[in-house]
């Protein structure tokens, strides 16, 4: 039932702010609204009950194991939420003069510094509001860099075929053309093809390492050399940073630009789709181009005492910047949560992230093999994730990765990522993250094994799944054909 269906005309049970409407007769009539907006008229209790009940129709980390590959669904510490929502932060207007905003700015400055150290980059901007915007900033900086050198013809971006969809979409948004680079069966980039692809048109290469296939790109130094020698720059899609945190730094691998999805590696909540942060880091030569604003620290000495103060850097300070990406500076509430999380872990905690994420993934991969599943890439270490291909099951029992996914929901586990990366048929991309206990991993593997058995003996169970959720399998084709994107009173589904 929609909230609109709880509505009764004339109800007004929740005076929150002014109870009377002030006069707006000073406003010319033709600029005024004629009829009230058709919002639901419900009491506060009705709203609370409705949305509390709705919330319970979600799977979430707080309620289920959620091994969604490429998404890093780790525990979102509750303290990060509570502390980021302290009134002192919530009530800060974004244009508050810097001097009155020192507590917040100090956190932002520290976060920039910690991200530099964790990734081996020279400087960071926290402006991008998600991974894709981080990519945008990174690719735009690559463009700005080439332009600043008069190198105007570098208009081609190289992207491996295993890449996330945001990579090619971003490159095009920034005005580049995209050239796909194939991946070898072992998961590494096809370096021979890469060598042939580079040239004076090459702006750069966008790479995820570990790749979305869940393996570490072993030839990274050779690749960096190829790109750099061709005059291109190397972009690191940091979505999978969780796999290597504290173990190896993108900066040390030769990357020139990186974005980090703080809503993955640094555990800010996914919130059912956002908000995120795609903080972007650069090597020395790209610093002038960083998106605005960034936060700088000033140390002054007064009567022998050191005074630290923080301020925003804007266009005045950074004339070569690619510019702003949002009205203020990204998503501060998200950034605060990432800051808090990093302070929780501390230097000694960074490396534990990669270690236990990797341990969990390799354990599950070993278990999957032991239980008779086919791995997309055998014989290699998993990074923080790995891929099962169900192509055999699909061929023999006419069940799909989708069927497995839906049946897993019935058994109380969120499904892994399906059908990504695109090059592996009927794939399940499984990422357990470091915060899950062996208990959860074993339970999941048991469920997967049970489903495999069901696929062999009773595939209908899989086709008909899910059965235990608020709805059964939904008709996506109908949704796209008979578009119903907003409630209209009286209209039926």
């Amino acid at each position, binding site marked *: 039932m*929609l909230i609109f269906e709880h509505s009764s005309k004339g109800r007004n049970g*929740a005076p*929150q*702010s002014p109870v009377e409407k002030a006069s707006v007769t000073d*406003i010319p009539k033709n*600029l005024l609204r004629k009829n009230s*907006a*058709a*919002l639901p008229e419900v009491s506060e209790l009705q*709203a609370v009950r*409705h949305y509390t009940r*709705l919330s319970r*129709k*979600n*799977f*979430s980390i*707080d309620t289920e194991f959620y091994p969604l590959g490429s998404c890093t669904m780790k525990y979102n510490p509750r*303290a990060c939420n509570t*502390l980021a929502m302290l009134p002192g*932060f919530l*009530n800060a*207007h*974004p244009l508050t003069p810097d001097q009155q*905003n*020192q*507590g917040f700015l100090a956190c932002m400055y520290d976060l920039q510094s910690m991200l530099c150290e964790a990734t081996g980059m020279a400087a960071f901007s926290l402006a991008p*509001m*998600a991974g*894709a*915007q981080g990519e945008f900033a990174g690719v735009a900086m690559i463009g700005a860099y080439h332009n600043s050198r008069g190198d105007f013809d570098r208009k081609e971006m190289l992207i491996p075929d295993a890449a996330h*969809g*945001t990579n*090619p979409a971003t490159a095009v948004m920034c005005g580049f053309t995209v050239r796909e680079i194939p991946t070898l069966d072992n998961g590494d980039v096809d370096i021979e093809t890469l060598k042939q692809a580079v040239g004076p048109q090459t702006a750069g290469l966008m790479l995820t390492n570990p790749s979305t296939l869940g393996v570490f790109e*072993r030839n*990274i*130094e050779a690749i960096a050399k190829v790109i750099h020698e061709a005059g291109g720059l190397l972009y690191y899609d940091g979505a999978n940073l969780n796999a290597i945190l504290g173990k190896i730094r993108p900066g040390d691998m030769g990357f020139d630009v990186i974005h980090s999805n703080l809503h993955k590696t640094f555990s800010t*909540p*996914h*919130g*059912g*789709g956002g*908000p995120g942060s795609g903080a972007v880091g650069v090597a020395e030569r790209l610093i002038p181009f960083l998106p605005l604003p960034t936060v700088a620290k000033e140390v002054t000495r007064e009567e022998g005492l050191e005074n630290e103060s923080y301020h925003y850097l804007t266009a005045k300070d950074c004339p070569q910047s690619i*510019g*702003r*990406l949002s*009205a203020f500076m990204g*998503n*501060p509430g998200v950034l605060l949560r990432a800051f808090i999380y990093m302070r929780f872990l501390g*230097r000694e*905690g960074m490396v534990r992230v990669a270690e236990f994420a990797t341990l969990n993934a390799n354990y599950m991969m*070993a278990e999957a093999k032991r239980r008779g599943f086919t791995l997309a890439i055998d014989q290699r*270490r998993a990074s923080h994730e790995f891929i099962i291909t169900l192509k055999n099951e699909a061929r023999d029992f006419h069940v799909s990765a989708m069927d497995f996914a839906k049946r897993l*929901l019935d058994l109380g586990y969120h499904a892994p990522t399906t059908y990504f990366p695109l090059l592996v048929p009927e794939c399940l991309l499984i990422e357990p993250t470091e915060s899950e206990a062996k208990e959860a991993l074993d339970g999941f593997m048991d469920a997967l094994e049970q489903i495999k058995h069901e696929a062999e003996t009773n595939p209908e169970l899989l086709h008909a799944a*899910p059965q235990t959720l608020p*709805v059964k399998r939904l*008709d996506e084709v109908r949704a*796209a054909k008979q*578009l*119903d*994107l907003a409630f209209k009173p009286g209209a039926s589904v």
Partner: protein
Amino acid sequence: MPFIPHTDQEITQMLAIIGADSIEDLFDEIPAHLRAAVMQAIPPGMTEMEISRLMQQRAEQNTKAVCFLGAGAYQHHIPAAVWEITTRGEFYSAYTPYQAEASQGTLQLTYEYQSMMTALTAMDVSNASMYDGASSLAEAILMAVRANRKSKSRKILLPTTVNPVYRQTAYTIVKGQQIELVEVPYDQTTGTVTLDQIKQQQDKQGGDITALVLQQPNFFGCLEAVDEITDWAHENNILLIAVINPLTMAVLKPPGEWGGNAHVDNNNNGADIACGDGQPLGAPMSAGGPYYGLLCCKQALVRQMPGRIVGRTKDLDGKEGFVLTLQAREQHIRRSKATSNICTNQGLVVTASTIHMAIMGAKGLENTAAACFANNNKLVAQLTAIDGMEKVFSATHFHETVLQFDDLAEDNCVADILAALMKKGIIGGYDLSLHYPELGHALLVCTTEMRSEEDINAYAKALQEVLCSLNSTQTAALSETA
């Protein structure tokens, strides 16, 4: 070990299954000489007790002054229920609802959001959110360029009454695609953009314009002549992009109803695309975010829409349910040909905003918006009663107004006055000198429903004192030099 659940025994068991001797072995594919050292620049880990103390101290450092700042972010009352429900684990820690059956909570809520946002804006379709108002404007422009097949110029008219940081952001995002953003100056008397000025620019640009952006209320808080301009745009095959403050739409004519006086083509009424920042509908100011960008359009443009869209459908049993739909527009399907690169959006803030709108209802939003307006009139009346303070523009202002300091000495500036007010616990407004130097010593002041009589009086009193002491210093300085 914070957030690591493994016991020593479990680690041993797991390594045995893997067939590795140590966790370190699992990283043996990474070249040894590239391995990271201990990250000295990151401080040692803290316990929750310690970090709570640190964050409380830092939060306390931020000001508690009474806020008369607007300029794109507004301090509104948010019902306590909103964030208490929004931060429930099931909303807070869920992913994008790709597994629809396990995400009906988020999906239905987003569908309700789309329904509310279309109701509020009188537009046909809303997506599930963009990052913020500024980036949403950029995407609206890209969308207009894709959608307006009748125009080839890729020129966008962008009046300077549109929020300057929105214009900057739009420029950053669209500049890679050979799109030209053409400024239109405003009328210095009214504080709005006039049709004449727009036409002049159109002429200057050779006539073919892809889209025109119009902000209501505009950055100065003034109300633009939306009907007239919208009709003109449509007569000229120009798509109209509305930038709105959604809260004010509870009272003001919504973009879906702009125009229509010319009776050109009834189906053509209303803005073609509406964007703006959802912050005034349930997002705390929070030093700048997370907020969300709203983005709505006419039905005909839906396939050009960037971002996620939720649709209502049925399950195998014919029961109502919700899914992400029209995904073929998006990057994870269409890759380089997608309508945008956006993936993660601002879902959780939309969750809050939906609950906010449900609890407030149309009446609640109307009362709030009207109170913002009325309070601003009160503030302006009080401040302009002070010697040397003038209201600059003649157009009706909504809840922000530009004021000028008449006879401020050369070497004094708005920043000094603001600093002096701050010492008295008042954040006095937004200094316009950076973006609008032509206005001289000008200040943009804002009131929301949160600013009580008491607050407004306090501001007037503080300002009087500040100007007084400034004058006396001036007089003193004068007499010294004399």
